[in-house]
């Protein structure tokens, strides 16, 4: 596997760091090398909190990645900041519930996932991050969904209701990404 890099970005409180950590733990469980690097400090007050996760078979050098292969943006300021940074031929996942624009770039794959709407419908808006995480796995196939499910079980709330909900929306995000991708291929 070549090195996989993803940046997740949004408001503080949208579960950006948690989603990134779940991905990092999943990579670790899959036996890969992983790095999770948060943004912090003054940057957070500028409207975007973000973290970067690197997953690789080889030792990971720089934890600082200017142009990651995949970027998930949860709000408009993050879209503006990160959309130009997606590596050519990479993936941009947009939380289209909160972002009413889309990328005009022709050299990347863009997925519009209405994560907040899906989360609200499912019963808890806080699960939007898990939907995006599912979409990220579905779009990139960086890890097996099974492993991510196991990690969600290990690390997230042990309350059965919440856990079931998280697992359900994870799968929903995953399926939605695959569906969107196959539609794009048809076009």
């Amino acid at each position, binding site marked *: 596997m070549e090195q996989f890099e993803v940046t997740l970005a949004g408001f503080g409180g949208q579960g950006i760091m948690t989603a990134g950590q779940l991905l990092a733990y999943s990579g670790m469980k899959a036996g890969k090398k992983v790095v999770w690097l948060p943004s912090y*400090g003054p940057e957070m007050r500028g409207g975007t909190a973000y973290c970067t996760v690197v997953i690789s078979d080889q030792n990971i050098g720089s*934890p600082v*990645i200017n142009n990651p292969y995949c970027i998930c943006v949860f709000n408009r300021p993050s879209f503006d900041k990160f959309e130009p940074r997606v590596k050519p031929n990479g993936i941009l996942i947009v939380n289209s519930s909160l972002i009413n624009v889309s990328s005009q770039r022709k050299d990347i794959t863009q997925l519009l996932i209405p994560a907040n709407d899906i989360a609200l419908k499912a019963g808890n808006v806080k699960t939007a991050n898990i939907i995006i995480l599912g979409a990220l796995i579905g779009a990139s196939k960086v890890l097996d969904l099974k492993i991510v499910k196991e990690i969600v079980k290990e690390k997230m709330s042990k309350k059965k209701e919440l856990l079931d909900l998280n697992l359900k929306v994870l799968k929903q995000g995953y399926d939605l990404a695959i569906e969107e991708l196959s539609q794009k291929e048809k076009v």
Partner: protein
Amino acid sequence: MLFGAASTGKRVFTTSSSPGISLMQEAISYMAGAQLPVVIVNIMRGGPGLGGILPAQSDYFQSTKGGGHGDYRLLVLAPSSIQEAVDLMMLSFHLADKYRNPVMMIGDGMIGQMMEPVEFPDKYEEPELPPKTWAATGAKGRPAHIIKSLFLDPIALDKNSWILHEKYERMKKEEIRFELYNHSPKNEIMLIAYGTMARICQTAIDALKQEGISIGLFRPITLFPFPEKQIYKEATKENIRELLVVEMSTAQMFEDVERAVYGKKKVNFFGRTGGIVPPPEEVMEHVKMLLNKKSKDKKKA
């Protein structure tokens, strides 16, 4: 507090980020003078003064040259991954006891905030150390142990200074640690970087390799004792034409590297400060600039 606790012979440790470490300098000098084993971690932020709160490597001088007063040194370790931080942490307590000297581990906000998988050994087998016969453990039935850095008699102070000096010389013989990355007789340029910056250089080296450019990295793990002889040996190899020191500071370790190569090779510098962590692309650009400059020089000749 460290002074008092270390005096009892227990292992002690504290951590802070740059300005907090500045406040400790007086006590660090006292502990070095009184030969107390302590471990201190400095996760460096940008300075001087209040500076900023983002990653930096600008406390190199403070750590390696002594931020406090007097003839003393700290043993300074600089991990570049979380696993190495774990490994060096165990080692640092041992080294502090071995030399009866403060040990400082320095990292930056990246090392401080990053998460990486780490493995802890099932069992830590530590080489045996002499008993702490100097510790203040209660003087009942024996003469009191006095732990102090005050020697008003010049002869006694001179003696203490040379005892410390001998320890630092012993560290230079026994404790130097470093790592080489991608060393090859094809390399014309050698990078020198430590901590987070060294990892970023590794990525730059891998990317340059894909473009057909081979360069190496020398990564000091101990900053004091500084691997000067080892750098000299690598730098003076025939194939190496220039060095490039990369730091998140305005050329601090650079001075030690220049000293180490003794003017035999040109030492260049690239750095960012203020919390800006240069990405691999910027390191690559600087390497290419050096290579281009050289090919122009060649044409002129």
